[in-house]
């Protein structure tokens, strides 16, 4: 059974049909790619899956459970995490704090425990710090743990978004253009990072990116979105040779 199962998801903003009858399956353990020209609706689809937007029609099931009516923070607790195309880091907080927030979100600590510095609160603080530092080490960010997130170069900020998403222990990770703003060397390294994440964290991924080399290399299965519709789907080689996909991309250029 698919971990994420979308059926005929549609959403309209005024006169713009952002998504039309999008059906998509992500099976456990896969890295699924989602590509398409700018404005095709990729980020909108992510917003629907995380509950930031509610689709007008269609069904979304996660792990066999209907997502309709489940609030954004509840979906995070079910194991859905994401990164943002337009980075949404907690800018005026340190790198370490950025990664501690999702861990905090799952802990049972109350403001009363914090204010009185109860032993349980101090223990949880210690545990959260250790786990956050381990994640920073995994993504090679430990050296900058005490820097403000806003002060980092883009490459590190993208990795920090990954670290923060992993901190909530997700089963499904939605990656929105993780390679945007990275140079060729960093992009190549990113594919390796994604493989390592899949191995060590047992995470299923849905990857949106414009970097074809990355998508072709990393993904098991690819969906192509254009004007809010799925125009092609299949393994990387098949999608690459699909005339309709070629036209969607070249048509955009012309």
């Amino acid at each position, binding site marked *: 059974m698919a971990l994420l199962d979308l059926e005929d998801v549609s959403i309209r903003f005024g006169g713009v049909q952002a998504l039309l009858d999008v059906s998509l399956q992500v099976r456990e353990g896969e890295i699924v790619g989602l590509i398409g020209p700018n404005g095709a609706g990729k980020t909108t689809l992510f917003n629907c899956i995380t509950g930031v937007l509610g689709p007008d029609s269609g069904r979304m099931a996660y792990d066999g459970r209907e997502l309709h009516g489940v609030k954004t923070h509840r979906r995070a607790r079910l194991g859905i995490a994401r990164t943002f195309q337009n980075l949404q880091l907690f800018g005026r907080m340190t790198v370490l704090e950025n990664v501690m927030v999702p861990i905090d979100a799952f802990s049972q600590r109350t403001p009363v425990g914090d204010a009185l510095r109860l032993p349980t609160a101090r223990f949880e603080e210690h545990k959260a710090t250790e786990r956050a530092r381990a994640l920073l080490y995994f993504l090679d960010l430990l*050296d900058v743990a*005490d*820097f403000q997130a806003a002060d980092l170069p883009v490459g590190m900020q993208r990795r920090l978004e990954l670290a923060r998403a992993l901190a909530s222990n997700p089963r499904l990770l939605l990656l929105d253009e993780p390679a945007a703003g990275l140079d060729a060397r960093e992009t190549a390294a990113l594919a390796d990072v994604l493989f390592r994440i899949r191995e060590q964290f047992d995470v299923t991924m849905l990857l949106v990116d414009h970097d074809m080399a990355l998508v072709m290399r990393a993904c098991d299965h690819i969906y192509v979105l254009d004007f809010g519709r799925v125009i092609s789907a299949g393994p990387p080689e098949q999608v690459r040779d699909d005339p309709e996909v070629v036209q969607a991309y070249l048509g955009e250029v012309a």
Partner: protein
Amino acid sequence: MIGEARTVRWTAVGVGVALGVVIPAFLSDFLRSLAADAAIAGLIVLSLVVLTGLVGQISFCQYSFAAIGAFTVGSLVAGHHWDFWLALLVGVCFAASVGVLVAIPALRLSGLFLAILTIGVALFFDRFLLAPGTWDSFSGGTSSWRAGRPSFFGIGLKGEYAFYLFVFGALVLACLLVWNLRTGKTGRVLRAVRESEVAASTVGLNLTAWKLTAFGISAALAGLAGGLAAVRVGSVSAGSYGLLQSLLIAAIATVVGVGAIASAAAGGIFLVFIPEIIHHTPLSTQWFPLITGAALIFQLVYAPEGAVVDAETRIMRRFRRSTPEVPGEDSEVTERVLVRSS
């Protein structure tokens, strides 16, 4: 070197508290009562340190929350002969619940619209809840309220110095609790909500619950200030909890900065002692709001984070590693510099 910074911080706190205890011992009873007022105002500034400093929400009705504390303590102690401590507890809880209630319509608002909503709340209190007659039916007329000074574990607080120490102790304790909140999970989570609501909710934070919590804590601190003010003056009048007071304290909190706990003390001193100083000059105390306004403009230009926060940053920077630099990765910049210099 971080350890050194911590030593500096706690030494500063120790010196500050010691000065707060010792200096009033040499002052007149009148100045001691003003110092108690300053500590009470400090609690209101502290309530803004939580609400504005952590979660980034604006409120122009903090004195309305204080009024709830004051009127609850006043009417229960004077009108119904309750024990002061129990009345204070009830007042703080009552203020916190009203804070949460006000926060519900405020959930989807921020910035200017939230400011306008809180002004509406303050006006509602001014014109209706605090208007003469509203509380009379409950307490038998505010004019007859005489809330006497409480005692603290058998020690009478009738003397001005004893009472000042009691209020100052409450302020220090509240600052300590807020410091703990700020450095723990609560502070981190609230700052995350301030920085990016969409990211905060996608990592699993319930925005509604946390915003209500922040409003509740903030209103509880303001309510505590009100409850203490009720026994400081010995009577309760609506005039001291109006919209203008809330606006003034919000302006002062901005001048000193909502990003530091020390701002509570500085803000309280500013509100109470600057008018007193003006009183001894040829100027009228009517000039105080104007002076506050001028200070606000200077602060916004020269220390956007607030005077106390700015000073704290400058001092602490000396005890940290010299200017932080992001290591590695910027090979491109290095190359460009090399090319230019060759």
